[in-house]
């Protein structure tokens, strides 16, 4: 019986999550080698690869992708580790400031950052002309710069808070205070103890999220469209363009590029792993030397300052969205709009539908993912953990979206499933479910087993134990996982674009589309709405248990 349950859950997850990816990869892969019957291509050939290599700017795109992807991940990891070391055990005050950045979708944040750092952006406006003498915007490549600096900045603002969150929760599994006390007794300063005693043990716990960040940074599309260079752009953006080009012959080299993109991520992670092993070997010698150097404190302080700067930029970016959404006329170099207007907000006919669709998609994909996650974890409780199951769950986060979405769309079309809300919900679940699992699995597995034993002793069967004990006790982590899932759904760009056949418009697809328009006021409005939704979801996730459990003090923490 329990094995049947386990197999069913496994088969369901495999069928719903892994098969579509494999099918999509297969179609993309075929096209990469010249087979796409729709455009009359039916001969196995290496031509698409040759065409890809000959496309103008291809080498630069590749270099840009690697530099921005690997670079931003490395810097984000270092900064996050430093900031966590600074903040650990000092109360949640500063940590609360990163919450809006965690919640805000990439596209919204990117638009805000663009509003902020452009030559005509808010920062230059705030200091012009009185400090700079500029009465027209300077001719400086502060945004969409050919080196990808603005893109890396955007990625950092989003990824540093994410890694900080992951590290903070992983720290719970380490004997932090005891380790630091031991370190102090051995004559290590606080910072040195962090670097030498905590970090080497913390890193293995956050390895998977780091890989996810790396895979994401190497293949991000929406943020790279808004902040990245355009001639040429990063590989993922170039691919999105080629898949959408009028010249349909470009689909074949684009498919080859999509396969290459998948290879880049695999290669990037392999390279990263290699660097980890090398660093571990070198690090061991460095640890054994046991120097009590003073440099570490300055290093951590620098990281802390950089993170404070990033967080300030991120919050200002979100504020810029709000200000633009309320502006009517805001010429350069005025620090604030000359004329304000609620016009955009008072025309819900424009954005109401996109808002409704976003809500519907978010609720549906979150409900599905949450049900699947709870079923999965409950099956584990009853029948033990499945080998390889982790890899299965996180596969969608590690394979670049562009690598399989076009192929998946072809598959879905053949099955007559494309272009509807159903297809988009399904595609979103591919990405929502893993994050729900990431958020829920640890608290679920950490549940105090004595509660269940007591319930069983009192005669409660497995179903009653689930409904009467686990779900109420875990209400808070479950709601948090739901909020995380909802936020992920709101942020989805490519799956909605490709699977919705353009008919499903969400706040995110509208915001990215409009960001290449001429009206910052409308873009600001969409960005603000987009950023607000996940934030409300988190507020609800934190607020509801407090109300539900107002007379159950022991349940408010979930873990007791």
């Amino acid at each position, binding site marked *: 019986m329990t094995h049947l349950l386990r197999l069913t859950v496994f088969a369901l997850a495999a069928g719903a999550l892994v098969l579509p990816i494999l099918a999509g990869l297969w179609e993309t892969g075929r096209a990469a080698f010249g087979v796409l019957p729709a455009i009359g291509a039916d001969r196995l050939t290496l031509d698409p690869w040759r065409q890809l290599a000959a496309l103008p700017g291809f080498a630069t795109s590749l270099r840009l992708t690697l530099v921005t992807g690997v670079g931003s991940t490395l810097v984000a990891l270092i900064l996050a580790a430093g900031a966590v070391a600074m903040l650990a055990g000092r109360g949640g005050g500063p940590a609360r400031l990163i919450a809006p950045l965690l919640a805000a979708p990439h596209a919204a944040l990117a638009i805000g950052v663009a509003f902020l750092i452009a030559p005509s952006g808010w920062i230059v406006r705030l200091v012009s002309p009185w400090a700079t003498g500029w009465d027209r915007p300077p001719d400086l490549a502060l945004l969409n710069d050919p080196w990808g600096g603005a893109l890396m900045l955007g990625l950092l603002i989003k990824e540093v808070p994410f890694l900080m969150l992951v590290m903070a929760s992983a720290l719970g599994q380490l004997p932090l205070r005891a380790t630091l006390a031991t370190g102090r007794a051995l004559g290590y300063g606080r910072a040195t103890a962090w670097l030498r005693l905590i970090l080497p043990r913390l890193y293995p716990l956050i390895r998977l999220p780091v890989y996810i960040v790396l895979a994401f940074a190497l293949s991000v599309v929406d943020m790279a469209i808004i902040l990245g260079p355009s001639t040429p752009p990063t590989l993922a953006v170039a691919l999105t363009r080629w898949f959408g080009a009028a010249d349909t012959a470009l*689909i074949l080299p684009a498919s080859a590029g999509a396969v290459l993109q998948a290879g880049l991520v695999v290669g990037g992670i392999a390279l990263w792993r290699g660097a980890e092993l090398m660093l571990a070997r070198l690090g061991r010698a460095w640890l054994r030397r046991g120097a009590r150097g003073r440099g570490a404190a300055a290093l951590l302080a620098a990281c802390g300052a950089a993170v404070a700067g990033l967080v300030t930029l991120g919050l200002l970016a979100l504020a810029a969205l709000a200000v633009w959404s309320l502006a009517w006329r805001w010429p350069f170099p005025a620090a604030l709009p000359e004329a304000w207007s609620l016009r955009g907000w008072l025309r819900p006919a424009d954005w109401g539908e996109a808002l409704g669709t976003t809500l519907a998609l978010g609720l549906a994909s979150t409900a599905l993912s949450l049900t699947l996650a709870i079923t999965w974890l409950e099956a584990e409780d009853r029948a033990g953990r499945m080998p390889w199951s982790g890899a299965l769950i996180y596969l969608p986060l590690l394979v670049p979206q562009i690598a399989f979405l076009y192929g998946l769309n072809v598959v879905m*079309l053949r099955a007559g499933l494309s272009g509807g809300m159903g297809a988009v919900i399904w595609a979103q679940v591919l990405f929502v479910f893993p994050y729900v699992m990431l958020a829920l699995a640890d608290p679920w597995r950490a549940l105090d087993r004595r509660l269940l034993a007591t319930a069983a002793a009192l005669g409660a069967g497995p179903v009653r134990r689930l409904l009467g004990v686990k779900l109420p006790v875990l209400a808070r982590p479950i709601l948090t996982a739901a909020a995380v899932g909802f936020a992920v759904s709101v942020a989805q760009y490519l799956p909605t674009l490709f699977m919705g056949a353009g*008919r499903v418009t969400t706040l995110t697809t509208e915001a990215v589309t409009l960001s290449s328009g001429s009206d910052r006021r409308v873009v600001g409005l969409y960005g603000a709405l987009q950023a607000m939704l996940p934030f409300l979801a988190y507020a609800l996730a934190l607020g509801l248990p407090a109300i539900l459990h107002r007379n159950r003090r022991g349940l408010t923490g979930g873990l007791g």
Partner: protein
Amino acid sequence: MRLPFVAALGLTLASPALADWPETLATARGQTVYWNAWAGDQRTNDFIAWVGQQTEALYGVKVEQVKLTDTAEAVTRVIAEKAAGKDQGGSVDLIWINGPNFLAMKEQGLLHGPFVADLPNARYVDLSPAAPASVDFTVPVEGYESPWRLAKFVFTYDSVRLPTPPRSMIALRDWAQANPGRFTHPVPSNFMGATFLKQALVELAPDPAVLQAPPTEAAYATTTAPLWEWYDALRPHLWRGGQTFPENQSVQQQLLNDGEVDIAMSFDPASTAAAIAEGLLPETARVFVPEVGSIGNVSFVAIPFNAAQREGAMVVANFLLDPATQARQQDITVLGSFSVLDPARLDQAAKAAFAVLPTAPALPTTEDLGATLLEPHPGWMTWLTDDWARRYTK
């Protein structure tokens, strides 16, 4: 009807719904037309929404705009559907299209038609073989797409910052050299950027007549040589040193509004006046056209071969050609896009509707717009943009 009798008969047999208009109207009732249209312009989006309200009230046909960042997205979608063997019930019913996208779809048999001559309001349009509505970028339309709005290349500038705009490509180069960083153009992979290069090509080509035929190796080399020489002299003096380009004309219009550049460009002569009304350009923004005139073309709507709501799409295409619709479209307070109808074919009432349209200071008159130059064959555009990418994308 220009079609030979046999072909017309074959058409009737192939799609009986087209045989007579009342039947099309009856089938169309209750349909929802998914109109795939570039969505970078809010006033166009509003206009499309208005069209939907009208066709729903008049014919029971709803319109749902599928908002595109690039028309090619819709083309790709139809190709993907053909790839999957979806020959009926396709997701795209109507596309705002022209030029290379039209050529690509027509060549691959992805379009339904010919259907234009079956539209009752086609009688207001000059469909003779050489008329602007019969040729799309030198490619014969042959009834596979229905005209919608007129487009003509214009420059936009701020008359306060730039009292005398440069009115030829040579003058533009000299001005840019004297004012580095104050001019740019959209990236040529975007149609506006490509149009700028074509405008320059038409102006600088030793013999513009060869542009009407598909380019040959030799003709391309001799015709574009002066263009690249001119461009190499211009590029270092562009905004950001000619290393980065705005993604499309909307982004460039924003640069003009912010004062990052002094000149923007558009394919819609009324867009400047419209942008001023929307608070998106300063009140002093104006339009100018090169002395020799500028490239112009007609925008069309086409119906994919597998459109699920073919009849509804035809009803919408027909409604777009209604003189009342075209007059509203030309109204600067609505869309300000010039009509595609032949004034000679309009009756008194229709002419009056156009005569009473309001005007605006930034709205150019027909005389201001100067001569309309023919679009080069699409082959030139493809070659030109590829060549540009090879030369300047490092």
